[in-house]
Each structure stands twice: as structure tokens, then as C-alpha cells.
């Protein structure tokens, strides 16, 4: 990790850490902690997706499906098989990773955006399975009676505990991704994104890397899905459909594709918009999303995160310049 990223990491961790203390005393905003739990879960999905989009240059329209695979794996294993939630989570992640691998091998060997097409179809298939396999998934009416998570024999019940748990996962995910990006593998990924043919000429196995990043993004989404399941204690297929896959894409694009911080920012911002600020538009909110995407694509193509350095004192950024993702 570069010095700049460490600074942002520490500052962000601090802000996230004190956030509940600031909002909880005020009644009208105290439920923001709950919103932030969801934002954290979505941020985890978006970090994985940002690795895929921003660094491997591929688009997946099935992140909600992988999110759902994690959610339903955790749900089904704990409800029907009484498995420990902490054991079910890696099972779901392994399943999601395996499915992504199967899907990625043919789709990513081809050049161009075949992955987008393949994942579009795949997302729909997964959603149909969730709706039809009533015996296991509960069908459209959902899966109920999912146990919560517990640490050391004590169930995590309080919203605050969930908040810190979920954001702990987010920061661990970020650390992991930063580590990957600042290694030889990360440099290779950026090279693929930049000039695929030239990367190949350097001896980079481009297809294999793209598959690996896709698998990684699926695993992130799946772990987020498991957290979601145990937090909600109830899941139904409508949380994992195409609309949600597109929501995840939007979050990453609005926040900024070329930066992991953009993924986090986008997830938080969009979650607040969806849950808090866009209620007035009711069914028309899709129009607002469309407008937002257009504005971002036209005026801030690098995402909102690219505007942040202008707001902050420039001292922090001067040491390494304002260039993005410097190794």
C-alpha cells in the first residue's frame, strides 16, 4: 500500500469508527447506523466488482446472483442442516467461487465483453432457481427462521455490534485488495486493463488472471450475501435479481471504477439515496438513477471519488501527487 492509501485508510477507518457515536444521540438520524450496516454489506460486493471492472476491465451483471448464492447457501445450510453460520459462510463462498470459475473460463477466454452477456443470463437463471426450488429456498415467499451470528457463544444482536462487524469485513477486504493491487499481480492486472495485447507480449497469462479476479469478486459478493442473510434473518429472491446487479454496477460507476475507495463511496452514497433520500420519487426513482449515471458518465467519468481530493487539504496528496492508484 502506498503512503497515500494508508492515510486514506486510517482516516476512513476513524470516520467509520466514530460515525455511530455522532449520529446515535440524535433521534431523527439514529437509524443511520442500520443504513450503514447495509451500506457496508453492499460495499463489500462493490469492492470485488471494482477489482473486476476497474482493474481487469470486465463487466459482470451477476453480482446480485453471487450475493444470492452466498445468502441462500448460508440460509439453507443453517435452517435445513443446522450448520454453524460461520461454517456455512465459507461453503457459500467456495460455491460462488466455483460457479464463477465455471462461468468465467469460457466467457473470459474470448476477448471483449462476453462476460457481461454470460453473466446477464446467469443472473436470471439463478433467480429462477431461487423462485422455483420452493422446498429448499421457500420460493417467492422467502426463507425464514435464519439464525443470527454469534461470536464466542454470544449472539450478535445489537445493531452497533453488526455495524462494527460488517465494516470490519469491509476493511479486511480492502486491505486484502490493496495488497493484491500493489503486488506484481496488481501491476499485471493494470497492464491488462491498459493494453491487453501488450500485456500478453510481456508473458502475462491474461485469461487466467481475468478468471481469477472474477472468482475473487464472486467470493466477495458471496461473503456479503452471508452477512446479509444473518442480519436480516429472512431472505427472498427479489433481493438478488437483475435490478440489484445493476444497482451494484451503478454504485461502482458513480463512486469511481478505478479506485477501491470509489466502490466504498458509491455503495454508501447509493444506499443512503435508495433508503433515505429518494423516497419522494417512489416508482420514478429509476429515472433519477438514470440521470445520475448520465451526469457522472459525462462530467465526472472517474467517479465521485475523483472529486474528493479537491475538497481536502492538498497536503496529504502532495507527497505522491494526485495521481490515482500509484504503486
Amino acid at each position, binding site marked *: 500500500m502506498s503512503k497515500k492509501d494508508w492515510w486514506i485508510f486510517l482516516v476512513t477507518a476513524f470516520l467509520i469508527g466514530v460515525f455511530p457515536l455522532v449520529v446515535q444521540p440524535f433521534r431523527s438520524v439514529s437509524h443511520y447506523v442500520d443504513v450503514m450496516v447495509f451500506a457496508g454489506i453492499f460495499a463489500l460486493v462493490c469492492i470485488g466488482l471494482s477489482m473486476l471492472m476497474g482493474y481487469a476491465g470486465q463487466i459482470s451483471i451477476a453480482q446480485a446472483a453471487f450475493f444470492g448464492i452466498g445468502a441462500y447457501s448460508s440460509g439453507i445450510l443453517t435452517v435445513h442442516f443446522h450448520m454453524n453460520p460461520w461454517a456455512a459462510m465459507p461453503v457459500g463462498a467456495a460455491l460462488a467461487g466455483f460457479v464463477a470459475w465455471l462461468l468465467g473460463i469460457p466467457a473470459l477466454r474470448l476477448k471483449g465483453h462476453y462476460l457481461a452477456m454470460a453473466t446477464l443470463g446467469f443472473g436470471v437463471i439463478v433467480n429462477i432457481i431461487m423462485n422455483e426450488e420452493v422446498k429448499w429456498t421457500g420460493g417467492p415467499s422467502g426463507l425464514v427462521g435464519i439464525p443470527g451470528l454469534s461470536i464466542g457463544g454470544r449472539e450478535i444482536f445489537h445493531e452497533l455490534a453488526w455495524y462494527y462487524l460488517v465494516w470490519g469485513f469491509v476493511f479486511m477486504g480492502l486491505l486484502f485488495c490493496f495488497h493484491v493491487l500493489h503486488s506484481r499481480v496488481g501491476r*499485471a492486472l493494470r497492464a491488462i486493463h491498459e*493494453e491487453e495485447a501488450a500485456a500478453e507480449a*510481456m508473458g502475462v497469462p491474461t485469461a487466467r488472471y481475468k478468471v481469477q479476479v472474477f472468482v475473487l469478486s464472486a467470493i466477495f459478493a458471496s461473503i456479503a450475501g452471508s452477512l446479509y442473510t444473518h442480519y436480516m434473518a429472512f431472505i427472498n429472491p427479489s433481493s438478488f435479481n437483475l435490478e440489484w446487479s445493476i444497482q451494484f454496477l451503478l454504485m461502482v460507476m458513480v463512486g469511481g471504477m478505478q479506485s477501491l475507495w470509489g466502490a466504498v463511496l458509491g455503495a454508501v452514497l447509493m444506499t443512503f439515496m435508495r433508503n433515505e433520500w429518494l423516497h419522494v420519487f417512489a416508482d420514478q426513482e429509476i429515472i433519477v438513477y438514470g440521470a445520475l449515471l448520465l451526469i457522472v458518465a459525462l462530467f465526472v467519468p472517474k467517479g465521485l471519488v475523483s472529486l474528493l481530493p479537491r475538497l481536502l487539504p492538498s497536503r496529504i496528496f502532495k507527497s505522491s501527487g494526485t495521481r490515482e492508484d500509484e504503486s
Partner: protein
Amino acid sequence: MLTVKSIHTYYGNIHALKGVSLHVGNGELVTLIGANGAGKSTLVNTICGLIQPRKGVIEFQGKPIQSLPPESIVPKGIALVPEGRQIFATLTVEANLQMGGYIHRHKREQIQEDLHRMLERFPILNERRQQLAGTLSGGEQQMLAISRALMSRPQLLVLDEPSMGLAPLITKEIFKIIQELREEGRTILLIEQNARAALNIADRGYVLETGKVVLQGEGTMLLQHQEVQRAYLGKGAKQIVDA
């Protein structure tokens, strides 16, 4: 070192290379010239594994490589300086060079050492090592592309139209670098449209026309050849207006 035996490459139904054969010996500088669409880049891409030939054999140091993917060919010792440079514009100069040493996974010291050697050799790159590669001038980018390729410590260096899009003076400089590399004992396959400059520094040359090798021989000999002079050097053409 490199032997290409009657290679046939297709793009779908288009027969791009119709039985091309060539040979590059150890320490030789061999050039391949030809007009647009003759199949020069197709041949390069076939050698480097970016396209697979339908028929024919490519042998590198005695072993067939025609069915290997590029990521297996690079470690065998072939490095490509791609057409149009194709540097990684949003990466720094230093990161570009490190990418060149990609195949040397666990040899950090070697990469560091090579990196310093490249920066010493091209002081302009040293000055700009922390700059994004996209901000370099065309000539500097070409130097970067060449040194990036050298970072993999190749046995054979393949240069695909290094003079493309460069000012004549810069082209001269790039050709000087190529000549220096040859004098250091490197084996080079140089693909060029600039026939005169390429043949001047090459040991041997091949002339490619519509997917076939139509002429081959020593560099200076080809320079004198009537066909080459007519087709590529613009001499001996019928004068329409007498000066």
C-alpha cells in the same frame, strides 16, 4: 535460433500468410520488409503466439512453439516490441519496465539490476521514471517499449515497425539503438516499412509481398536489387516529368 517453416495463417477465411519461411541465426540482425498488408504483423503475431498458424512449424532453439500461447513463449526467450509501442500509458515509466520483467517472478534483485541498467542506458527515462508513460514523447515511448522488452532478458528481440509514427530524426536515433543492440551480440528480428534504413543495418533481409516471401538475401545485396529499389525505394520508376 528461430526457424519458420512454411507457415500458413488465416483470419477466418482470409489466407494471410501463404507458406512463409524464414530463419534467424544466433547473433544476427534479420529484417523483414514489405508494404502495407503484406502480412508482416501477422507473421510477428504468429511467431509470438497471439495467432495460431493453421499449417507449418515455428522452431525456437530447436523446439516447436507454434501451438503455444504467448505466456509460454515469452519465458522461452522471445520478447516483442509491439507495433505502435503499446506502452502502458497510465502506469509509470518504472512500472512499465517492471512489467517487462514480469516472467522473472522470484528474481527481485535481477529486475532491480536490469531496471537500473535500462535507466542508465536511457537517461531520459531515468529523468521521467515516476512520470506516467503516456506523457512521454513518441521517441521516448519507443525507447521505453524497447527497454521494457529487454527486461525479460530475451534470446530473441522482435521489433514490429519501431519507426512507425516517429519523426525522421527520432527514427534515426531508434535505428542507432537497434544497431547498438546488435553490436552487443543480441539476436534481432526487425520488421519494417522503412526498407532503406532497415536493410542498411541488417545482416540479412526478407521481402514479404501478399503473404509470401518474394526475395531474400544479404542486406546490402537487397538494397541494390532492382525489384526492391523499384518497389520500396522509389528508384528506377518511369519518370513522367523530366526534371
